[in-house]
């Protein structure tokens, strides 16, 4: 009797006063999850909706995610329609007014960025295009820095009493990140101007940042898998001027890239693409370290 009373008291206590009361964050990708942890530290409890081995375009609003959305204080999404196939349903089914678009608990990374490749014309005949621009923003570290600023402001706005904590962590991250960018840019300098074949438009920001020269794309149009005849044309085109590298992401099907690699004698490099996309890409720093190491090693 005494024990059960004690248990009851414990249950009531933990139910009424959750320890630490960390801010619950639902991040759509591992990268935003990692960034939120960098800035939020122990004040955030982050759940990441996808892994680096998933195609974020094609994720389902599965029950586990709806349940996480229900209790989230903040959703950290990419925006620009990257998650359009599932996030709206997730938010709608969550019954959580705090995270509805427009509410304080909804954050889009794209809102802090100027996107590349904003189409001048919108027609689905052009493939999977995004009206607001290319949403695969995470592979340019300057974008990460800009999103970090906006996210610091968002976390502070949600917990005004913790502004100093978030500001301090944001500043610390900013300093470490600026230093890391310097290191990566120095290290990757030899890659500038190298010709690469990319898989999908999701490598565009990486190429833009490092000054890689995109000579072709394995997907004829965004989201459209290559046909045999298209690959044939690609081989003809690339045989005379072989690219230095063929880039693909951890979640991509390696077959077309390997097929092309064997024919045009250029190495196919599997890049982590997101945090968790390779054993080395444990966090955002690891993601860029590994991406640059892999590019340099293959070159």
């Amino acid at each position, binding site marked *: 009797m005494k024990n059960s009373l004690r248990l009851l008291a414990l249950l009531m206590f933990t139910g009424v006063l959750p320890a630490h009361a960390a801010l619950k964050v639902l991040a759509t990708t591992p990268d935003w999850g990692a960034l939120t942890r960098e800035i939020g530290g122990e004040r955030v409890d982050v759940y990441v909706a996808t892994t680096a081995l998933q195609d974020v375009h094609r994720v389902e*609003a599965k029950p586990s995610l709806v349940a996480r959305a229900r*209790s989230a204080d903040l959703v950290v999404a990419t925006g620009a329609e990257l998650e359009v196939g599932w996030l709206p349903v997730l938010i709608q089914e969550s019954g959580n007014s705090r995270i509805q678009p427009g509410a304080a608990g909804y954050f889009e990374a794209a809102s802090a960025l100027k996107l590349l490749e904003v189409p001048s014309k919108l027609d689905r005949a052009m493939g999977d295009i995004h009206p607001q621009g290319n949403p695969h923003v995470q592979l340019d570290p300057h974008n990460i820095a800009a999103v970090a600023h906006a996210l610091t402001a968002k976390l502070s706005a949600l917990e005004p009493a913790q502004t100093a904590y978030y500001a301090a962590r944001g500043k610390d991250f900013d300093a470490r990140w600026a230093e890391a960018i310097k290191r990566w840019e120095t290290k990757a300098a030899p890659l500038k101007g190298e010709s690469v074949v990319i898989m999908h438009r999701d490598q565009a920001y990486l190429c833009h940042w490092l000054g890689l020269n995109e000579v072709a794309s394995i997907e004829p149009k965004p*989201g459209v898998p290559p046909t045999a005849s298209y690959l044939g044309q690609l081989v003809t085109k690339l045989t005379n001027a072989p690219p230095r590298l063929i880039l693909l992401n951890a979640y991509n099907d390696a077959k077309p890239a390997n097929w092309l690699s064997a024919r045009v004698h250029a190495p196919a490099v599997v890049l982590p693409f997101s945090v968790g996309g390779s054993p080395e890409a444990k966090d955002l720093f690891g993601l860029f370290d590994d991406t640059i190491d892999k590019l340099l090693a293959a070159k």
Partner: protein
Amino acid sequence: MLSFRPVAALLALALLPAVSGAADDVGALRAELQALKNDYGARVDALEARIQQLENQPATTADVPPVPEPRVASVPNASAFNPAISLILGGSYTSTSRNPEDWNIAGFPPSGGEVGPGERSFSLGESELTFAASIDPYFSGQLTAAITGENEIEVEEAFVRTTALPDGFTAKLGRFFSGFGYLNEVHAHAWDFVDQPLVYQAMFGGQSRQDGVQVKWLAPTDLFVEFGAEVGNGDSYPTSRGTHNGLNAATLFAHVGGDAGDYTSWRLGLAWLDGDAEEREGGIADAAGAPLFQTFTGDTNTWVVDGVLKWAPSPRRQLKLQGEYLRREESGDIADGVGVLLADDYRSTQSGWYLQSVYQFAPRWRVGARYDSLDSGTPRYTLAPDGLLSSDPDRLSLMLDWNPSEFSRLRAQYDWDNARDDGESDRILRLQYVYGIGAHGAHKY
């Protein structure tokens, strides 16, 4: 010059209190000025530090994306608030070994609605038009209208939904597909087969709809646990819209779901639909095909247990397994065509289930199989105390579809259909297309 005197006097009068007051406050003013100086000094220092910091940063920081300029249209744009519009275009080619006009489900009263293999040859399917938008910070609204091949417009769903209720509650008001079962809420263009399972056709005439109110509550747990309740006018088979005030159909449902490992997700559901039927048309037929009665008035309640499991080991492969078991009990009066009571003790218990699996084996290809089975039970009443003959219709369907993109699908489905009361099977081949244009829809799990 004289004229200036009064002015000067007035001025002096006006300034006098201020001057005397100022003399008293000189100390305070000085302090204030000093504070201002300090403040500005600090700000200037901060700005200088910032300039210094910016100058010290590498040249590449010029690439830092600037904060996007506000994209405000300079001209008022009346269409800027137009709802998201999406349109589904669909159609099929049907070939059956037997005349589709005599298709029925043995032992079950005809449910009306969209049942059976449809007409032979080419048919235009339903063109589904959806408008959706937020209404204000508290509600969003959606209309889905189906324009049929027979040139009719049917309102499939038209509801408003709350977006600002606290504590995991959401409410819907209007016409909506009931949260009963798994497949019931899924729109036709998102089905994995051309048609609904036989059990849905027999028990709901396709899909169960409510014109009423739905309230759902999602538990604040990491495991997905959801409860819902609906009340409506009952104007959807097997209930019917009555002549009295009040409600003719109520639904309760519960769902639980989650993940099992990195690649597997699941959901289980249990639901109950209870309602009244008033002079509902359609009776069970005898062995010769003649209806034994014409109308039913009484209680009808249906249970369902549903489950779905998805396994997605890579972005290009997915296995989906789903099944549902439905059981319906009815009791009440049956009458003939002119309203003469035939019996007041009609009772029936009917059930059915399906199990289906769809496997995406390549990025654009899916293959699927479905098995349907029904049990008509032995409905009883005074004139048939031993019960009517029971039937157990079944069907096997195989399908293959090709999805060139998220917005287009071509499908072939072949059925071995043993639904008819004569027990002879029908072989049905259907080729179907489903295309979507407009706003990118997001699908439920």
